[in-house]
């Protein structure tokens, strides 16, 4: 991965956005690759080149990335991933120099200060987000709808959740969204964000049905984004409408 000289549109056109997918071998239980593909697609449709690094758990996490993705995983891989990321230090260094982190489900919990291990025991997280997670009584499984913090200006979230985690925020993190239908953090809020770090329980390919959230992450890197040709937005818009309507029909 080359050393960048800053993002955005320079005189010679846009420089590449560097996407880093953390540990697809451990944290990719629910189609998490979707987030990588959607970010890459939405950047390229705007003429912004993309460089992708898929970093397995036996590899070093580069610190020069622009957007880091961390996905969902089962209990054992989650603990192993947290341990490896602590030892590696690459992700924490990247976040402290201003990189974007988007973390999903188990990855969301790892980004916090603490989460529940396989027997419910507390396991230390990376402390990149002021949240603390534990194991709830019941699994939250099903379609989820949530309204994003209006400050962020992104459209309503639609997704699927499947987790037993309950997450409390400290003063250093704000809720990403307010739950309309579903479980989320367990207190009526969904996900959390602080600075350029955001996490959510909308599992797997959360950005697929939520291009607004994908664009928010991209804008944190390059600033204001040019629009995408509407013909490339039609299918996703249809999918969003179908899923939102399906939840309305059953609730």
């Amino acid at each position, binding site marked *: 991965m080359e050393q960048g000289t800053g993002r955005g549109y320079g005189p010679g056109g846009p420089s590449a956005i560097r996407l880093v997918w953390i540990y*697809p*071998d*451990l944290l*990719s*239980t*629910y*189609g*998490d*690759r*979707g987030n990588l*593909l*959607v970010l890459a*697609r939405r950047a390229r449709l705007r003429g912004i080149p993309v460089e992708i690094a898929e970093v397995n*758990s*036996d590899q070093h996490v580069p610190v020069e990335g622009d957007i880091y993705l961390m996905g969902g995983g*089962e*209990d*054992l*891989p989650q*603990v*192993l991933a947290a341990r490896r990321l602590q030892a590696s230090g690459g992700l924490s260094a990247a976040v402290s120099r201003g990189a974007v982190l988007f973390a999903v489900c188990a990855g969301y919990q790892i980004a916090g200060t603490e989460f529940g291990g*396989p027997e419910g025991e507390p396991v230390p997280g990376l402390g990149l987000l002021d949240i603390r997670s534990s194991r709830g009584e019941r699994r939250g*499984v*099903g*379609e989820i709808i949530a309204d994003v913090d209006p400050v962020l200006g992104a459209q309503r979230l639609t997704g*699927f959740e*499947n987790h037993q985690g309950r997450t409390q925020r400290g003063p250093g993190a704000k809720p990403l969204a307010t739950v309309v239908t579903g479980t989320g953090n367990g207190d009526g809020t969904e996900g959390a964000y602080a600075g350029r770090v955001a996490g959510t329980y909308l*599992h*797997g*390919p959360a950005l*697929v049905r939520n291009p607004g959230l994908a664009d928010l992450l991209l804008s944190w890197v390059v600033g204001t984004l040019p629009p995408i040709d509407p013909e490339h937005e039609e*299918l*996703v818009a*249809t*999918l969003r409408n*179908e899923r939102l309507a399906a939840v309305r029909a059953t609730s």
Partner: protein
Amino acid sequence: MSASSPPSRSGLPLRARLATTVGGAAGRASRLAGRGDGSVIGGVIGLRLKPDLLSLLARGRQIVLVTGTNGKTTTTRLISAALGTLGQQVASNAFGANMEAGLVAALARAPDATMAVLEVDEKYMPAMLEATQARVVTLLNLSRDQMDRAAEIWLLARRWRAALATADCRVIANADDPLVAWAAGQARNVTWVAAGQRWHDDSWCCPNCGSHLRRDGGDWHCGECPNRRPPVSWVLAGDEVIDPAGGSRPLDLVLPGRANKSNAVVALAVADVFGVGVTPALAAARQVRSVAGRYTHVQRRGCELRLLLAKNPAGWLEALDILVPAPVPVMLAVNAQVPDGRDTSWLWDVDYRRLRGRPVFVAGERRTDLAVRLEADEVAFRVVADVDDAVTQAHSPAMEVIANYTAFQQIRALTGRTD
């Protein structure tokens, strides 16, 4: 079994006989009404009348259970075929009804069968093992599937491990799947089969200690604890099977693909427990051409369709492997009903890029999810209403069809059940 001929098995108490009789009548009614193959409804009613019916029906029989994420129905069929060479009746839930009611129905239908080969849903294996006191338990593989209903895969393996540690049965297990190997690791009597593993993405972590698993070709071991691939007796090597004596011979199956070679080698190992040699068992396996509609060729308006079932990422990987090459068109159909799993996130675990450059049609109740997935992989496609619509648009003498569970059943209902 019919309502007028109650089971002759002398061991059955009156209430159990009544339960199987009423259940059988309901199953027949269900078949006549055209609702399913009738194998579940009878079992459901029977169990309501007599909750321990499965134990009673299993008593005195030699039972083989077959479980795993993929290949259950096919392997059950291959084992049944091999055991059939002994000349005795073999009971089986051949159409994939693999929960308790389906097992009850299969045994009630064949009251005089002394042997039974039963596929079991992976979540129910421990309970079904306890109820049936099976002689052999067959473990194929474990990978992500219907995760909105199932617990985590590792928890499933842990339940298998606990159940097999205390059971008095022979275990035939795939040593190439680390989760399966760990699940069978405390069983008293295991025959290990090198049946291969195409999908690795649910087993990078040691199930025993949580450390990183190291892989070297087909071999694997944990870097931190003593957990490693056990020594194997049966081996799938390319297109050949190597038996415990070291003899190798070609499989020559009609069923396509690596996964079915794997299923066949496991079936040979099970047959061996019952004294069926490789030669007759293999001859029987080669007679199997389709399994509950899978791999079936059907004619539809001048187009020959081949029907492939794929229910999860590992299954799709194997199905995409066996597609005939371009330019033969492909139709994909995906639903997300309860038996499929309500969540379509798994679509993003499948690499569809190899469908580029051939006609692709997209159908099923969740075709929009599938379309968005293909768009991201830059695969050109057309959305169609159903298989007939695809045939009309394809103008091709042949088409490959891959569908997940209920989408597959819908296509079979439309094109006619052929076996």
